[in-house]
Structure formats: structure tokens, C-alpha cells
């Protein structure tokens, strides 16, 4: 039996919700009280152990979303914690921390007849000669259902195929003077990287070659799809106008 060395975790209000570690040659990801993913470094031997009494729908969401993305990372693939919507052939990735409103924003965007859901929570991104591509991975929005919980709601339309990723938008709450306004600002340089890094889905955190490859990926991604910060007032009142700002901007982005 190997001792587990936890090397990364996500907490909310002091409670650990998710952590990643190593036990000898094995990589582990644990969603507290829900399930544990175990994989060898090559990612060709993977198990998911479900905790007794765990919510089956949540486990299914993890299995198809974050767990699959972690295994993809072992194979050299990259995913973002992001919702994503395609509008008239152009995809946007919506970034932000827990509670930023990514799912809600995506759901509102998908009310339009020309929009379709690519991802609610985990977005697979591939970068090739033609630019960045967003791959469809999820068919449901997970929306606030009261009591702090979330419930799945089937998307009106689901994107059937990958789409060019033409913009990344980080959702932020308006602050200080102008907090009531909607503002879209391009982020560049170190600010863009600082904004993007927390959205990377990473299983291997402690291997220099992987870290360097990740930085190179960020460079190519930012070259392929500009990153913007969208500040708008929290709440549903400002949501339609904020979505309009993104849709208008998306229509003007260069499509490879």
C-alpha cells in the first residue's frame, strides 16, 4: 500500500471538495463523498470508485466531464473548466470561478435559435493548424435549483460537431465606479495567462515537461482565441444585455 501525497485541492468555505494526488505511480482524483478516480501515468488503466450513497447524477456528470478530462490530460489533451456555446459556427468559451455564472450565461445564450450548447462545465479544446476548436461534450445545463444545489436541464440545442473557438470570455462581477455597467475588455500578457491558468484541467501537477507543454498550449490558445473579461452586475436583470454584448462581439471575431 502506498501513502497518498495530495498535491492540489479545491476548497469552498474551508471545506475540501476535490483533490488530486499521487500514491506511488498511481494518480488519484477524489471528489469528497462522491467518487475517486485512479489512473496509471499512461492513462490506460483507469478506475472510478463510487462512494456509497453518492448522488448518481452527480457521479455521471463527473464521470463524463471532469474525470474524462483528467484522463485526457494524461494522454496530452487539454480541457478547460468552461461553459461553451456555438453561435452561427463561432464558439465562445465562458470562464470563471465557481459561482461566476458560466452555466447560467450559457443557458441564456442558448435561448436563441441560432445557438447550441457545446459544454456546460468541461470543454475539450484542440489546437491545430486551423486554430482552436471547441468540442461538444455535454448536453445539459446544470442550473441553480435553490438550497445551493444544481439540477440538470436539457439544452434546447446541442452542437453536433466541433466548432472554431474564436473567443474566450471570463465572467466577472462589476466593481467600484461603473459597477452597474457592462464592460468587455481584452486581456493580454500576464493578465491573460493569470486569468486562464485556473481554468485549466490538470491531473499531472508535478512534472516539469507537462508544465512547460501547458504554458506552450496557453500561448497557442491565446494566439488563436483572444481572451476578454466581461464585467456586469450580478443578477438576472443585466444578463440579457451582457449576453447581447458577447453575441455582438462574437459575430465580429475572425473565424479561421
Amino acid at each position: 500500500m502506498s501513502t497518498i501525497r495530495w498535491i492540489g485541492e479545491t476548497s469552498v468555505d474551508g471545506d475540501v471538495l476535490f483533490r488530486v494526488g499521487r500514491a506511488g505511480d498511481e494518480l488519484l482524483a477524489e471528489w469528497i463523498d462522491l467518487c475517486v478516480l485512479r489512473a496509471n501515468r499512461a492513462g490506460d488503466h483507469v478506475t472510478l470508485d463510487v462512494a456509497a450513497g453518492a448522488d448518481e447524477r452527480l457521479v455521471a456528470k463527473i464521470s463524463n466531464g471532469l474525470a474524462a478530462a483528467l484522463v485526457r490530460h494524461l494522454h496530452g489533451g487539454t480541457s478547460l473548466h468552461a461553459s461553451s456555446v456555438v453561435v452561427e459556427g463561432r464558439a465562445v468559451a465562458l470562464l470563471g470561478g465557481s459561482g461566476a455564472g458560466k452555466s447560467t450565461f450559457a443557458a441564456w445564450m442558448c435561448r436563441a435559435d441560432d445557438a447550441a450548447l457545446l459544454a456546460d462545465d468541461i470543454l475539450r479544446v484542440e489546437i491545430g493548424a486551423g486554430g482552436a476548436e471547441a468540442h461538444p461534450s455535454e448536453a445539459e445545463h446544470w442550473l441553480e435549483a435553490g438550497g445551493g444545489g444544481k439540477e440538470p436541464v436539457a439544452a434546447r440545442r446541442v452542437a453536433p460537431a466541433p466548432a472554431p473557438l474564436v473567443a474566450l470570455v471570463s465572467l466577472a462581477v462589476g466593481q467600484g465606479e461603473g459597477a452597474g455597467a457592462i464592460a468587455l475588455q481584452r486581456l493580454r500578457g500576464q493578465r491573460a495567462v493569470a486569468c486562464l491558468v485556473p481554468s485549466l484541467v490538470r491531473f499531472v501537477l508535478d512534472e516539469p515537461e507537462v508544465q512547460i507543454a501547458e504554458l506552450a498550449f496557453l500561448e497557442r490558445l491565446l494566439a488563436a482565441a483572444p481572451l476578454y473579461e466581461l464585467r456586469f452586475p450580478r443578477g438576472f436583470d443585466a444578463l440579457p444585455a451582457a449576453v447581447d454584448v458577447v453575441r455582438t462581439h462574437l459575430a465580429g471575431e475572425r473565424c479561421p
Partner: protein
Amino acid sequence: MTIDETSRVRCARHVFAREFDEELVLLDLTGGEYYGLDRLGARVWNGLVAGRTITEIAREIAGDYDVTLEALLADLVALVRDLAEKGLVEVVV
């Protein structure tokens, strides 16, 4: 070891730097942590990589900023001390 304007420091071997829009992102390979340097910080870092002292770097770039050499030196010493505290640079003995 104390860092002052005459110090010569070098970038730590476990740090990987990459330029983004004339700014620098530093990746600490020991823990996978990212750090950012603005344009001034990037110029300082590149000076350190080239083996210059803090004073030499300050003299080289002072003309590009509306600030006295003394004030710039104080800022650069503070920056390099911060980099040293984070383990991103090491004093050359």
C-alpha cells in the same frame, strides 16, 4: 543573503520564462506555480538573465521612465527581493 543595488543575482534553474505581449510569465517548475512580470519587470528579468547588476539595469532603463535613478533603484531592489523570496532568483556569491 541581503540583496541591494550592487547584488548580482541569477534566475533560478527551476524557473521557465515565456514572453506574452512584452510581459513575462514565469513558471516555477518545482510546484507548477505561475508568476507574472509587467513590461518593466520583464526588462529587469532579462537584465538579470544577461548577468547585469541591479544598478546596471536601472541605469540602462532609467531614461525610459519619468522617475529618478534613486527611486527606480529602490523599486528594482524591492522587486528582486520579492523574486528572491519566491525562490525565482538566487544571489550569485
